[in-house]
């Protein structure tokens, strides 16, 4: 008997030691198909940041970040398959999942909540999941579509010389006919009523490489502005079609999924002057990107085959997603034990209490690279500001400061929508005052 006890006492620290100090992150993206530029760029940036962190700091407080790639083809069923494949990998399972597609995000909400794995959708996904009381495991961080939309209308107001000047203006809303594209229709309608502008919604079917009839509709409507909610090949096609019908590109305002180099370069000169929203900046001159160059690319270990894509919008977005990922783990370690791999449940706490202020951004080498982030149980969005940039034919030029969103419009809509979801699913919203 004594021997058994002794053996088990000895075995416990041995077991603890045997558990490798690794934090596993699934990298589910798409390297083929019409949306490959987005998937490969973001995935590459994310992995490169992890590599840099492992090489420079030895991981997060000594816990190495590990990952595995999985091809989703931007399809829901493959996305679910990837999630299921990778959720148990690593010593503590998947840290969190970036579904990298609004459709896949929807499919994973229930599964992630059941498996206690946070679903992090930065700049996409289900908007009303910003209400953390109903969606404890879903984090549409930085800015959701509705917030972005209010910032866009604010920006148009600025350009027109004041919000009151919006009255009587006409805005055409050209959207990708998918869950992603349709997400902002209600808020645009609401804002149209509030500010007195007229809006028309024009759908472009997936993948969007044929838009002649849609731009004919745009021309008939004679809009002052066009809001482009495109994705992938739809964007350059829209810009070329706009050039054909003679609509000024300086009056086209794109969503951030329509605002990367890959969206404008194929359109050539037709893209000059086109404006888009963004929640991260482009450029390789940020400190964090320089660090990646130094620790990863200088050793020839970089993820991107085409090195010129390092510092592009999508690449930097991947770096930003990686920063949020590792910072959430770091935060979780503060509470659950430094230098230990965190489980999904612990990372959820880390995400919910995540606060990346200007000081921390500076330490990360990301000041000006992204906006500060402060998440809470009530607010799973945490940021909400948007910058606008214009394509000058060679690169993106930032033309605005961080423009904050109008939460007085967005928040009630989110809460109403989340409450309806909670009712449908029979979820009792959490009481945030009891969370710690």
């Amino acid at each position, binding site marked *: 008997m004594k021997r058994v006890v002794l053996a088990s006492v000895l075995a416990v620290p041995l077991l603890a030691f045997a558990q490798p100090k690794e934090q596993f992150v699934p990298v589910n993206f*798409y*390297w*083929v198909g019409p949306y*490959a530029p987005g998937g*490969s760029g973001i*995935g590459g940036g994310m992995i490169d940041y992890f590599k840099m962190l492992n090489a420079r700091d030895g991981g997060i407080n000594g816990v190495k970040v590990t990952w595995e*790639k*999985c*091809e989703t*083809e931007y399809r*829901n*069923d*493959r996305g*679910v*398959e990837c*999630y*299921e*494949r990778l*959720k*148990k990998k690593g010593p503590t399972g998947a840290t969190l999942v970036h579904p990298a597609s*609004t*459709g896949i995000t*929807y*499919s994973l*909400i*229930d*599964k992630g909540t*059941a498996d206690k794995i946070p679903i992090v959708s930065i700049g996409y996904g*289900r*908007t009303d999941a910003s209400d953390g009381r109903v969606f404890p495991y879903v984090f549409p961080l930085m800015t959701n579509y509705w917030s972005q939309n209010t910032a866009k209308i604010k920006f148009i107001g600025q350009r027109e010389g004041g919000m009151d000047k919006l009255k009587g203006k006409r805005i055409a809303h050209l959207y990708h*006919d*998918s*869950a*992603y594209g*349709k*997400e902002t*229709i*209600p808020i645009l309608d609401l804002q149209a009523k509030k500010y007195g502008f007229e809006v028309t919604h024009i*759908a472009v079917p*997936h993948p969007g490489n044929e838009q002649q009839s849609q731009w004919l509709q745009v021309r008939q409507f004679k809009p002052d502005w066009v809001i482009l909610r495109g994705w992938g090949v739809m964007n350059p096609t829209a810009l070329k079609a706009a050039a054909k019908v003679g609509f000024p590109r300086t009056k086209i305002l794109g969503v951030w999924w329509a605002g990367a180099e890959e969206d404008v370069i194929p359109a050539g000169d037709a893209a000059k002057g086109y404006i888009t929203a963004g929640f991260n900046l482009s450029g390789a001159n940020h400190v964090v990107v320089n660090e990646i160059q130094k620790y990863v690319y200088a050793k020839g270990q970089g993820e991107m*085959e085409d090195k010129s894509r390092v510092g592009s919008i999508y690449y930097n977005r991947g770096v930003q997603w990686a920063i949020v990922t590792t910072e959430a783990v770091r935060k979780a370690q503060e509470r659950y034990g430094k230098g230990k791999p965190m489980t999904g449940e612990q990372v959820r706490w880390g995400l919910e209490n995540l606060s990346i202020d200007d000081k921390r951004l500076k330490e990360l080498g990301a000041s000006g690279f992204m906006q500060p982030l402060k998440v809470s149980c009530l607010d799973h969005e945490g940021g909400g500001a948007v910058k606008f940039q214009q394509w000058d034919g060679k690169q993106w030029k930032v033309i605005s400061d961080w423009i904050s969103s109008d939460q007085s419009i967005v928040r009630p809509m989110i809460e109403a*929508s989340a409450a309806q*979801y909670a009712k*449908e*699913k029979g979820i009792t919203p959490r009481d945030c005052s009891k969370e710690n």
Partner: protein
Amino acid sequence: MLYREAGQFKSTYAQDQQIFPIRQDRVAVTLFLVFAFVVVPLIGDQYWLGALITPFLIFALAALGLNILTGYAGQLSLGTAAFMAVGAFMAYNFVLRMPWLGVIPSFILAGLCAAAVGIVFGLPSLRIKGFYLAVATLACQFFVLWMLQRVGWFTNYSTSGVVTAQSIVILGVPFDTPARKYLFTLTVVAVMALLAKNLMRSETGRAFMAVRDMDVAASVIGIPMMKTKLLAFAISSFYCGVAGALHAFCYLGTVEPEAYSLDLSFRILFMVIIGGVGSILGAFLGAAFITLFPIFLNLASAWLHVFGIEISHATISNLELIIFGGLIIFFLIVEPAGLARLWQIAKEKLRLWPFPH
């Protein structure tokens, strides 16, 4: 040697008309069902059950539905995904609006809705056939998706057009884990496959095949054209509708119109062609090939690293598509009648083995 029917005498009509006339077949099928119902849920982990086998079964059911229409009744259709969409959305709406109904009646009603849509879009088949009919069914594909995207009632006025499927509870038992969802799917698929197998041996099935082989001759011997063709559309759409409902409730958990695009219709048609036109088993083989093979290729690509071959991930992803396409062509050249025919040839060889002469 083992697979031989010598000595199995049939003394009644009932014995002569069994689904599997050979005893070894009966034993094998029973063992296989026991394996699927008992052993698989025990040994399969969440990934296998939830991400591989369940979708395989669901797509097999959809392919079975299309096979009834295309393989048995000879009516080419490109609207399979649309019928699945009708099933998925109507199941959601029945559960949402009539919760007292229960899940299984909702699924059946959803299948009947799909059947009704199938009958309407099957009407052109009375006048046109072959590729022209395929084009007419394309209209169904586009119309149904357009309607689901535009009419808010179907999505319960959800802003994004995506709705979340409700949880399945039958007689107080929640079907929430992958293993339970698998069992639910398996039961539905097994029952419906059995029904299809029997249907094809009945008068209706023979009428379908007569229409497929030569519709003029079929009408001369007294098979009513309209009834037979529309019935084929109805039954096929019913199967697809139930498959769509399972797809939404047991696999993805969300219902969005975009998931049921023309792309999916083509994939199901490929399952039928590769598996074997006019064969129940073929639907399963084809579904296994089309849904599971790309994933295995994807998993296999990870082994390349073990052998120290460094290829970029984008190249591997593209390679998978190339290999997959090449294999489809290979199989069609080797056996144009599909994988089911290969299986049949193997069985015939096995009957003679080891003394072929």
